């Protein structure tokens, strides 16, 4: 039996993260019965987004221009580079307005289980940037997980091998703002003690 456009639509929706075939069918049905007009708008928006959004060839960020607004901005401190795993992490840091340097998106973290090796990460571009740009400090903003820290150790080695003069730091691990000591786990308390600083 040949598949209808509706079946194709359900299949496309079910490929999205967080959606299974049932929810995909529900969304497709809702669009067809109650929001048919908005389907054309959605299709047009999807096309525009696909056409206009670009991956920055320098840092790996998403923007409408290549290179992205952050890399092109003269207000940014180009001597400080923050290495992050994903674009979502970049947006999280940008929300805080606390960092004025530039970024480099790796595109994931090393993981044996997920089959992510150094070849799958955006490391060759990082090496090229270190050769071409005058970077004085690198901040490793990778997650406090075994995979995140394995990646941090790997990247640190990679940088130190050729660029010994670059200062490398990582984000602090420890007490969250609003966290009560009594409710924190042992590992967090211990790393907070290790990372304590004088006041």
């Amino acid at each position, binding site marked *: 039996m040949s598949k209808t456009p509706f079946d194709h639509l359900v299949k496309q929706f079910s490929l999205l993260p967080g959606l299974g075939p049932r929810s995909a069918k529900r969304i497709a049905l809702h669009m067809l019965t109650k929001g048919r007009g908005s389907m054309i708008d959605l299709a047009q928006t999807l096309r525009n987004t696909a056409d206009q959004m670009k991956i920055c060839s320098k840092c790996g960020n998403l923007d409408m221009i290549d290179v992205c607004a952050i890399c092109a901005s003269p207000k940014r401190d180009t001597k400080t580079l923050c290495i992050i795993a994903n674009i979502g992490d970049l947006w999280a840091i940008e929300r805080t307005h606390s960092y004025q340097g530039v970024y480099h998106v790796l595109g994931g973290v090393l993981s044996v289980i997920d089959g992510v090796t150094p070849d799958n990460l955006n490391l060759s571009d990082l090496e090229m940037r270190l050769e071409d740009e005058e970077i004085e400090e690198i901040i490793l903003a990778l997650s406090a997980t*075994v995979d995140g820290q*394995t990646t941090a150790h790997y990247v640190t080695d990679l940088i130190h091998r050729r660029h010994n003069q670059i200062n490398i730091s990582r984000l602090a*691990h420890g007490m969250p703002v609003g966290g009560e000591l009594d409710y924190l786990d042992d590992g967090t308390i211990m790393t907070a003690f290790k990372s304590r600083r004088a006041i």
Partner: protein
Amino acid sequence: MENWTDQGIVLHVLPHGEGAAVLKLFTETRGLHAGYVHGAHSASKRPLLEIGNLLHGDWHAKIDDQLGTYKLELEQQFAAMIMEDRQKMAALKALTSLLSESLPEREAHPDLYHTTLALLTIMAFGADEIAAWGAAYVKWEIALLRELGFSLDLTRCAGGGSAQELGYISPKTGCAVSYSAGEPYKDKLLPLPAFLKPNGGPEDEEEIVKGLHMTGAFLEKWAFAQHTKGVPEARRDFSIIISQN
């Protein structure tokens, strides 16, 4: 309904679907035991499911043969205490992958479980220098080999020499050999680290590298000889990282 509770060390977490995972725990009374974890990617469960963590597991299934489901609580977050140091992290990954890939499932190894727990405690709470925990790691690998049926004899000389001057170990038999008895074959024998000799010795970096080379050879030749993938990559990486320093 089958049900048991026990403490266990997280060895392997395999993501399943979008929100769940299959977890391999190394428990005292059940050995290596897998189970399904619902909501493994939730903010509350994600920190638990890091390799090396000690968890309190409540496993239940309709029948014993099933994969079953785990309910978990954190006992000790070893991973967080170890992950900042590169060498310790490499050792943790080697340890968990060796256990996960060499032990049979659902077979208790209480001695090895307690040895593993002791090693994790040393690594988590001790100093970062390899001299503080490297010898304990080598001894743990010897314990793993013993548990798998490949015991090393480090108490006497296989060549009839003195037990007080042991210097080598035979890669064929796993028996120690004295300096004098091993002299003609020293190119074929493995050097015995000083801290494994009957009268002890320094636990410095050089001796630890010797120890890792020795246990690595036996893991490859004995324990993982029949495995298609051979010795886990994490164990090879650990040797390289230690040798580089």
